[in-house]
């Protein structure tokens, strides 16, 4: 049986399939450009507009009450420290719990029923809207005044942020530990290590980089969150001066942006832009840092 064709074998651009090929390629390129556009626009506006309001006074002064002084609105100093303090509180709670939970999933029960349930639960928890975390902490901590009689407090804010960090940390710890080759575990058992020694001396250090990537990403997400802080930490215009101040309202960059963006005064709006500048620069650096740590060379599935 021989096959003959009168069609030319050279590339013919007017064929329907070749036309559609070109057209769809162009459309997908266009989509990619549209998708990147918002990032470029947002970043450039934040950096240019926000950056232009940044000076030493903005960074350290306390914000003035809106409408008091139309020319100057003070600064964002307390909000910066507040965001920092609440992120630290959230990390102190969520890193041990998240890493511990991840250790359980990866080292003790890889495919048990309970582990499956916890994995499912942490995926569900990751999908819980952040404002619900705020409502929850409001109901159990703020409205019950369970924290030594204080209502809105920086600690309550930190706890609500820790709920948002927890699932990310558990998931990355679980996955990072699973990538550690089993040979290392067997070698550790072989020289007589107990399970605790094996985990703390062998697998955790081996997975340290991937875990810290996850922690940084979780932290970057939590530090930018506003919704959970709206009715837990509320907002404060003052620096904290003593340990006791942790039990009172605490300002944060994100709530400051939200409050001051909706004020009708130009000076307050400028502070919101300045706060956005600081927040975006810090969060993008955290993200890029975590990417960089991630590329330093974690275990991959291909290696042993």
């Amino acid at each position, binding site marked *: 049986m021989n096959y003959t064709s009168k069609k030319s074998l050279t590339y013919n651009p007017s064929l329907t399939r*070749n036309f*559609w*090929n070109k057209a769809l*390629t162009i*459309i*997908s390129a266009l*989509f*990619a450009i549209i*998708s*990147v556009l*918002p*990032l470029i626009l*947002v*970043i450039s506006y*934040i950096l240019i507009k926000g950056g232009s309001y940044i000076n030493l006074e903005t960074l350290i002064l306390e914000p003035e009450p809106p409408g008091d002084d139309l020319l100057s609105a003070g600064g964002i100093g307390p909000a910066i420290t507040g965001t920092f303090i609440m992120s630290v509180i959230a990390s102190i709670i969520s890193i*041990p*719990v*998240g890493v*511990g*939970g991840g*250790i*359980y999933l990866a080292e*003790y029960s890889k495919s048990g029923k309970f582990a499956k349930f*916890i994995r*499912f*639960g942490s*995926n*569900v*928890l990751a*999908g*819980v*809207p*952040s*404002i*619900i*975390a705020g*409502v929850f902490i409001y*109901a*159990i901590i703020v409205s019950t005044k369970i924290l030594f009689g204080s209502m809105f407090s920086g600690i309550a804010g930190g706890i609500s942020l820790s*709920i948002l960090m*927890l699932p990310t940390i558990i998931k990355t710890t679980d996955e990072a530990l699973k990538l550690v080759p089993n040979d290392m575990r067997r070698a550790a058992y072989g020289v007589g290590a*107990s*399970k*605790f020694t094996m985990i703390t001396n062998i697998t955790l250090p081996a997975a340290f980089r991937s875990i810290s990537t996850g922690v940084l990403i979780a932290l*970057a*997400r939590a530090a930018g969150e*506003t*919704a959970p802080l*709206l*009715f837990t930490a*509320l907002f404060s215009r003052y620096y904290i001066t003593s340990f006791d101040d942790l039990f009172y309202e605490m300002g944060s960059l*994100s709530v400051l942006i*939200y409050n001051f*963006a*909706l004020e009708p005064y130009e000076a307050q*709006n400028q502070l919101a832009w300045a706060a*956005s500048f600081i927040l*975006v620069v810090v969060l993008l650096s*955290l993200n890029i840092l975590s*990417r960089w740590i991630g590329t330093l060379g974690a275990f991959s599935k291909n290696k042993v």
Partner: protein
Amino acid sequence: MLLRVDKASTSKFTLRRRPTSEKLVDVGFKNIVVAMASMVAVVLFSIFLVVYYESTESISRYGLRFLFNSAWNPVTDEYGAFTAIYGTLFTSISSLLIAIPLGVGTAIFITENIIPKFIRNIIGIMVELLAAIPSVVLGLWAVFIMEPFIRPFLNIIYELFGFIPFLSTKPLGAGMMPAILILVVMILPIITSISKDSLNQVPSKLRQAAYGIGASRWTTIFKVIIPAAISGITGGVLLALGRAMGETMAVTMIIGNSNNFSWSIFAPSYTISSMLANQFGEADGSQVSSLMYAALILMILTLMVNVFAQWIVKKLSLRYQ
């Protein structure tokens, strides 16, 4: 090589029993990590229980009527979340409809070898960095930059198509349309990065086989690559839907926060999360319980979407492995 044997190591080998302290540490450590893992379940269940418990008053008073009543009046103590539920579903689904082609198209563009890998990587990283920008900052940008920019275009659409009920009010600033657009910006990175990952995981044999029998690039993409990656893409889309429904800050800042129901996408509206953000701080009495009821509805909606997402990823991912 001369093998030197130490005196010590030639001495009789003894079996050492593990000291009790070491065993206790082992057991204790296991119990601690089990407790920490259980924290996830504890937190999740207590969120449900607390939100449910706080909303019981409102649930028993309004029942399912709450879902279809658009009154929200603290003075007469009459509450219904219809406007907010409609707003939540409408904004999230329409933003999804815009974001799916954009996100999947971008993912295809950066996984196919159309342009050099270096540029594709940069586009991929940029889209993922967009996810790192906090929603309140996007809200600020939407209020001061995006909304004033798009308002003239929306006005033109209103002038031309104002007779359609969905476009029947004059765009005056905050409203549903800008909220939908900012939601697109927020969920685009989710769809793009998850679609990219699942497109990358499609075995190259499938692509080579399709090319081998004479399929063009886009025939291969539509008939082979996308069907093979559909589980991951669907999972990403559903995750994005969950995120869009729960998104609070950017939407609150731009949607206008009005409980007056309107079919028009140019009119101010409400979502459940923006209602919570707006009113929860100053609410008391039965308003708190009604807000908790709305929060419960939001939780159930996002929970259904997330569970469905996990189920569909599991169900469909078996096809090409």
